[in-house]
């Protein structure tokens, strides 16, 4: 999977508050699948209120069908609230775990880049390092590109989570569908 955001304007971030119940994820995913829309990334976790979970869905779709799918999502009985986050007006974070080739000869080079990006080395082997990096998805993309040269052995990303930006947030850019 290329982590590069291809056509960023087609990527939309939906934050969906759902009841924390069996089968809810399948209902949400089914609405996208039915229309042939690809879910680019997905993060799910319980909220501070255990009755609810929050899904952060990044979906690869034009705006018009997105409006329709958002309305359809809202029709699901277990969906409580949907917010579309404008990427420019929200705080997005993602976590990455990466094992990269780093033999004795190139190890310091890798460590230097990890430091530049504010990552951490969490595991060390003879030929490789495992790195964790949390940050803006864009930074993770950049880091991933740079590491390619060394040889990525394995890579996992969590998918992004997002919250609206505080002060500068203009009401028009948060669309609550109800």
């Amino acid at each position, binding site marked *: 999977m290329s982590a590069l955001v291809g056509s960023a304007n087609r990527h939309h971030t939906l934050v969906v508050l759902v*009841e924390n119940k069996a*089968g809810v994820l399948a209902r949400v995913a089914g609405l996208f699948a039915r229309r042939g829309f690809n879910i680019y990334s997905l993060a799910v976790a319980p909220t501070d209120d255990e009755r609810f979970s929050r899904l952060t869905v990044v979906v690869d779709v034009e705006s018009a069908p997105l*409006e*329709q799918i958002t*309305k359809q999502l*809202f029709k*699901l*009985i277990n*969906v*409580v609230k949907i917010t579309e986050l404008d990427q420019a007006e929200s705080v997005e974070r993602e976590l990455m775990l990466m094992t990269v080739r780093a033999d004795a000869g190139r190890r310091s080079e890798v460590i230097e880049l990890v430091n530049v990006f504010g990552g951490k080395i969490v595991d060390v082997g003879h030929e490789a390092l495992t790195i964790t990096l949390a940050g803006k998805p864009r930074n993770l993309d950049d880091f991933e590109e740079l590491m390619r040269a060394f040889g990525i052995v394995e890579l996992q990303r969590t998918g992004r989570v997002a919250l609206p930006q505080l002060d500068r947030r203009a009401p028009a850019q948060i669309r609550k569908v109800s």
Partner: protein
Amino acid sequence: MRLTGAQALIKSLEMEGVEVMFGLPGGAILPAYDPIIDSPIRHILVRHEQGAGHMAEGYAHATGRPGVALVTSGPAATNIVTPLCDAYMDSVPMVAITGQVPSTAIGTDAFQECDTVGITRSVTKHNELVMDAQDIPRIIREAFHIATTGRPGPVLVDLPKDVLQATMEWHEWPPAIDLPGYKPNTKGHPRMIKEAAKLIAESRRPVIYAGGGILKARAAEALRQLAEMTGIPVVTTLMARGAFPDRHELCLGMPGMHGNYTAVTSMQKADLLIALGSRFDDRVTGKVGGFAPEAKIIHVDIDPAELGKVRRPDVPIVGDCRQVIEELVKAVAALDEGAQPDRSAWMAQIRQWQKDFPLQYDRPSPDQADGPLKPQYVLECLRDSTPDDCILASGVGQHQMWASQYWQFDHPYTWINSGGLGTMGFSVPAAIGAKVGRPDRMVWAVDGDGCFQMTAQELVTASAERIPIKVAILNNAYLGMVRQWQEMFYDERYSEVYLSPDLPDYVKWSEAMGCVAFRVEHPDEVQATIDKANEVDDRPVVIEFRTDSSEKVFPMVPAGLSNDDIVVGPTPGREVRQ
């Protein structure tokens, strides 16, 4: 009070006021069938679970109350998928209860296991797998609430056998519903309603485009008020026939692919469409880009997802049709004391279209009493020989379109058909369900020979349960609607559409199922036979009409074309192109 899950289920259904359910038992649902013996709820034993589903739909269409179907797991659950999808498409309130293998066996490919909630997820408004008997009353209460409120639809509850067998403590009927994600908005936005009233007052060529939502919201009376106070003509879609009386001078009848010329063309030429509980279905709009090009749109629907789905409205109003129309009536009255512009030119134009392009077919003249039997003629005779509150249930095909065109629907809830899904085999079980719900009414099913062969076995159910429905088979020996398309669009290359007029022998078959049965081959036998059928009141009756195979449904807007390309009749000289 200690109850088994099964007892709790039946008690919950009683608490919901269920008077009848349609079903067929089997292994996984067996525990639920035992308490039925002691319950006042009537159970109607069907011959195929699809029948149970369509009966529940027919019951719901006729009464407005949710239909209930009860079936077992696996093949029974899959058999009911078609009615669920049908109810989903046509917004029919229905609760289906399916048995499931014991919860410990779920996921092991146990005997008669299928992923019922998975399979039905996209054809239900909601479904739920119950894993704890204690949850049964709450989930049943929620199921009925969801099925009947907002945009109605089917809800499925899947009950594993061990959950039905487990004991639970029955405290009290859940007093309140707690569904944080489900709060349908019924009251229209006052500012939008005012906007709508303004658009109406400015409009010179308005048409009310009434859909099935009028019936679901029980808004027929409100619609009549709106139409009469504004003088705006009304088209009633296939799902809304009867929502506005056909005999009313403002009624233009059915629009769409087989709509009449005036209904189709008035929408095309309108400067304002007031869409009430209608959803701009492709069978109504034709090519969307060419649909009602000059019209502004007011769109009222309880389902926000309908607004802007096909055509972006100028005034979108989310709300219950009845409430919104009632408010709209007030808003119209408040604006300039309800003054409406002079629309006499528009009405004159409409009257001219009605005069120039009425529905037409070759009516038999008295001297050709044994000529070919025209299906339209049969329907006209049937219409004129039945009370005006007679309920008509239809199959899917040419006969459905003729029924909608030639019947006169003067009351809401007298027309029951499968519009969205177009399910062949719908009419016989739907008519049975309707008759169970409205035993006081005469109920006729109009069916095609093809459709009839899909669910006819439910006439056994009707005989056994003494449900005296009446069935008119328009036997044209073909899958007629498909034949029509092959004739018109595939150079008369008929591929796999011939059925035969006398295989099966419909009279013998019907008699074998306990019905009184007649066959009609000539126009001069039609009336007398209908009269005979109308007298039968203690069992189902079937008339097989041998109709003209070559008859086609007109007008027609060929698929993919604009409604401006409506073809009014079969002869090339009569084709109208604008």
